[in-house]
């Protein structure tokens, strides 16, 4: 035990001596949480649009005004020909074009029937969908206003309650997701070079001749990084609550405990990478390339997992951040207790054991 603690101290001194790296490790999550927490949202608003009004009458101007006044749209251009519409799209200036035919108002009032054409830039299908929906409902409202909203018989009223996030703030789904992403990446990258660095620098021999068991060497390497991670978790949670206004509804201690567990999972993954790579460069590259996109895509906060084809859904199960994202959402936002997340917790524990197990099993006590 004493040897072990001495080893931990040595590792800690290594980290402490390199203040610059330590500084980066502590500031990185803070900056990222703030940036992403504020900037990332799936909401669609202020989208640039163009209007091609061939009619220029009362009705078309009224609708144009309504649309331009909505917070979803930002009228950047009035175009005067179909060619112009195409050119504006190609310059990437607009996402939607609204086209009024000639005699719009006349048709509407005299034959009770008029047309509006919406052309969306569907290279981004989701935004296109959302924007046409918004524009459609503004036009619909205008149409309703023409009939003066008479009270109709047999009316079904609907009362909608938005659970957990009544204001529909983007941060509620993005902050937990970003937490999972940032913790995963930062922690894995921290330890990913822990062992390989010694190999590359040639200091590995010294460690190998020490009487410490491989198991202890590996744990000792991870412990100091765990302290740094705890600091990261604390700062991230403080920022979520006080800066990004995402409350912690459930138990803070449970949340801390689960975050610590997830951190240990990530550190173990880093150690596994470190153990199998030959150079620091390869190690960090694997950590970065193989984790960034998969973590981002498979956590479920950016792209709904239930939308994916079944093989992808199966793959998503091996991504630890998916489980962690469910856990934080349940505790932090829904306010549920341990009974709701024990299964996910167990999965993370299992993953950690497996990762550490493989690392220890593969840890070579002899150099090639």
């Amino acid at each position, binding site marked *: 035990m004493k040897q072990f603690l001495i080893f931990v101290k040595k590792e800690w001194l290594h980290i402490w001596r390199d203040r610059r790296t330590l500084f980066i490790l502590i500031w990185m999550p803070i900056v990222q949480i703030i940036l992403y927490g*504020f900037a990332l949202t799936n909401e669609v608003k202020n989208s640039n649009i163009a209007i091609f009004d061939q009619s220029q009458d009362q009705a078309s101007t009224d609708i144009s005004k309504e649309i331009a006044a909505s917070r979803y749209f930002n009228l950047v251009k009035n175009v005067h020909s179909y060619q112009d519409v195409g050119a504006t799209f190609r310059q990437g200036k607009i996402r939607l074009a609204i086209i009024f035919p000639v005699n719009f108002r006349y048709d509407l009032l005299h034959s009770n029937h008029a047309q509006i054409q919406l052309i969306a830039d569907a290279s981004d299908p*989701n935004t296109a969908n959302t924007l046409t929906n918004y524009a459609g409902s503004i036009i619909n409202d205008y149409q309703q206003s023409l009939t003066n909203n008479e009270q109709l018989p047999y009316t079904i009223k609907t009362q909608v309650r938005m659970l957990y996030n009544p204001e529909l703030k983007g941060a509620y789904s993005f902050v937990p997701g970003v937490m999972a992403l940032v913790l995963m990446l930062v922690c894995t990258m921290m330890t990913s070079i822990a062992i390989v660095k010694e190999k590359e620098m040639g200091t590995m021999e010294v460690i190998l001749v020490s009487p410490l068991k491989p198991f202890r060497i590996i744990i000792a390497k991870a412990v100091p990084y765990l302290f740094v991670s705890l600091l990261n978790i604390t700062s991230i949670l403080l920022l979520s609550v006080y800066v990004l206004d995402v409350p912690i509804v459930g138990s803070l201690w449970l949340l801390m405990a689960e975050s610590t567990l997830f951190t240990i999972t990530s550190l173990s993954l880093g150690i596994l990478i470190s153990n199998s790579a030959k150079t620091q460069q390869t190690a960090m*590259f694997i950590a970065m390339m193989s984790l960034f996109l998969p973590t981002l895509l498979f956590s479920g906060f*950016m792209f709904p997992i239930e939308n994916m084809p079944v093989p992808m859904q199966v793959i998503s199960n091996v991504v630890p951040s998916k489980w962690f994202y469910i856990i934080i959402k349940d505790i932090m936002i829904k306010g549920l207790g341990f009974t709701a997340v024990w299964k996910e917790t167990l999965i993370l524990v299992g993953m950690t054991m497996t990762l550490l197990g493989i690392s220890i099993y593969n840890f070579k006590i002899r150099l090639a």
Partner: protein
Amino acid sequence: MRMLKFLLQKELKQIFRDPGIIRVLFIMPMVQLLILPLAADYEIKNINLGVVDQDHTEYSRILTNKIIASGYFKLKDYSPTFNQGLKAIELDKTDLIVEIPPHFERDLVKDNQATLFIAVNAINGVKAGLGGAYVQQIIQGYNQNVRMKWIQAPRYSPQPTIDVTYSDWYNPHMNYKVFMVPGILVMLVTMIGSSFAANNIVREKELGTIEQINVSPIKKWQFILGKLIPFWMLALSVLTLGLIIARVVYGIIPLGSYFTIYIFASIYLLAVLGLGLLLSTYAQTQQQSMLVSFFVTMIFNLLSGLYTPIESMPTWAQWITKFNPVSYFIEVMRMVMLKGSGLTDIRFHIVAILGFALFFNGWAVLNYRKRTG
């Protein structure tokens, strides 16, 4: 010039000597390009529905069927009480509950008015908003049917209607992959370019080989170019491979020309590599340079407009995207590949990216000192 040639030879040899590098450089990105676009689908469909029916009449049954028949919803839970329905939301089994209160049919027919309750899991605001809107639309339609049934008149009053026709340009089948593949490719190329370059000079510093270079009669710009060109070539090959995959596997054939893409990509890579080299001249250890370059690339990637629309970001974040080379490349890729934009359409993007390239590389050359410490 001959000096540069030797330097390039040396760098290329060094890169290709490590078989692990080739794996991470080529195989990993390509595998990701093959797998990830399948997962990146943000269309709102398959909303899991819970129904709490306390009325048990023909009306409530027809309404439930109508909602399911719309295609947006999948019935996942059918509970007798609201509290049980809520449990299903807590467990993520359902996203939305429609509660039909007792006496729904009686109230509607006798009192001319009845109320339905809808509860939505709103953690994901966009999904909740759209899901709520879909349900309400369906209920409106159902309401219309009920009226038709009870009011026998042909139609109450001919009301002026506006027909909205929709056209979806550039991607009429609303294929999400067409949108994601070019973006993911940009991201992969960027990650490869910047982090490899970032690591490179530092590696020489850490291994001590930089002293040899420092004592040799190599000029600063030669040294920087010698570091830059090999990675530039590698990144362009990764891009080429990616474009082939986009074409062969995903059937994405650019509407614009490959020439335009390559012109832009060549300048873009100079900018990204320059940034990597710049970081590399500041860092003392590989760990530092990798962490910082990773940090910067991650911010660039996430705030590039690939995942979330730039115009929805707060103004300060939109300003950050103006200084983000990745957002330019993503936009250009989409413009050229999907909309057929040409060089004149992207001239501002080219000027901007050229600016980045000069700025980062100039700074890197200035900051690189032929002394260590």
